[in-house]
């Protein structure tokens, strides 16, 4: 079966430094795939390539087997079937409702349907009461919940989460992690998470890819990776013995 999303020999450099040195991976429909690895190893770069925000220097990003190049009309269609939540949420200078409705407006969804879906999404993240408040005046945790609702309301085929709980308190981390699992259960989205938090990867992911020195050193079911890794470097990284 062709995976909905796959990387083939993807390379990417910044300022002469090769960050990704040939990434090959397929992400299966409906799974939660976590990309873990030390800081600066290219986790976010990989996610940005998958979300078609940046183009690889070489290699291909394929969606349902078809290669997609950044900037093409097909890429916009493709991007509209995906959504991404970044580490630091940026909210529009508008109400919480308007923030969550934004992506639906872009897609020309009927206003009555927008209303129903936005309120459902806000209830999903416990922000129904805040619908009329200015989003940029809420706390960081609440803004990240808005960012989640704003992405989830689009019912994306693929949802990318980039260190989405990195700066949050434990209460908001728990709430958002539960929202991710519930979203997968109810919407069936494929979810790709980038995290430096190994505990989070273990809590959420079905499969894990360990990115070391620009390559996926090992990919496998989360339990196998964390409990019985076959790669010495991965074992060293997961146990904290490998210093980066």
């Amino acid at each position, binding site marked *: 079966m062709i995976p909905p999303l796959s990387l083939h020999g993807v390379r990417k450099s910044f300022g002469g430094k090769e960050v990704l040195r040939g990434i090959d991976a397929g992400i299966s429909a409906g799974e939660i795939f976590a990309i873990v690895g030390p800081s600066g190893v290219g986790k976010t770069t990989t996610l940005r390539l998958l979300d078609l*925000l940046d183009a690889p220097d070489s290699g291909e990003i394929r969606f349902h087997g078809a290669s997609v190049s950044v900037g093409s009309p097909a890429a916009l269609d493709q991007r509209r079937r995906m959504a991404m*939540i970044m580490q630091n949420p940026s909210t529009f200078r508008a109400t919480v409702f308007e923030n969550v409705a934004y*992506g639906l407006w872009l897609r020309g969804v009927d206003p009555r349907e927008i209303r129903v879906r936005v309120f459902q999404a806000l209830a999903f993240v416990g922000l129904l009461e805040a619908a009329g408040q200015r989003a940029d005046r809420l706390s960081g945790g609440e803004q990240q919940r808005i960012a989640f609702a*704003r*992405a989830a309301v689009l019912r994306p085929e693929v949802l990318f989460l980039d260190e989405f709980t990195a700066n949050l308190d434990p209460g908001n981390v728990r709430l958002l992690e539960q929202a991710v699992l519930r979203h997968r259960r109810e919407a069936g989205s494929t979810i790709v998470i980038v995290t430096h938090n190994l505990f989070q990867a273990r809590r959420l992911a079905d499969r894990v890819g360990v990115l070391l020195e620009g390559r996926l050193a090992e990919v496998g079911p989360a339990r196998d990776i964390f409990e019985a890794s076959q790669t010495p470097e991965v074992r060293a990284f997961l146990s904290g013995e490998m210093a980066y």
Partner: protein
Amino acid sequence: MSVDAEVLQIVGLSLLVAGTSTLIGFVVGAPLGALIALKEFPGRNFVRTLAFTFYGFPPVLAGLLVFLLLSRDGPLGALGWLFTPIGMVIAQTFLVIPIVMGLTISAVMAVERRLHETARTLGADDRQWRATALHEARLGVVTAVMVGFGRAVSEVGAVLIVGGNIRGHTRVLTTAIVLETSQAHYLEATVLGVILFGIAFAVFAVLQRLQGRGVL
């Protein structure tokens, strides 16, 4: 004309000239600023630098250039706009456009840095992103207009040269203050100065109020 009526006429003309030049400055400067901020084109950085350089364009120089343009032997001399409020508006518009344009560029580019990526991840195409950026930058654009108005209403060099400070015809608050001071009428000059300050204060108080209410 009584003193009160004359002061009212001066205040009215000041508001009319500064308001009209600000309006034109907005109509021209804001779209240009937005275009420069959002559209990639060759020489974009140079145009931006030029816009920022013109922030500090000396009003007397703007006045001189417009004077030469409108003087009898100038290219637009036949219009007869020298020493008229129309000429004053033209001179002040030259001062307002770079301010509105430059501050609009800054406001839109700040939005670009903060939100472009987010909008893209949510599916915005280029046209939708431009509309979003302008909407998000509205506070900055309104501020640009207010600053432009502040510059116009408080400027003296350009309106003095182009308007000629003719009583009952082209005399505005700033040129009246210059005249009263030169004649050692310090009390009158101070009163006019307080009125000028009051206008500027009122404009920015309105802006702050709109911002505080979340209108912007």
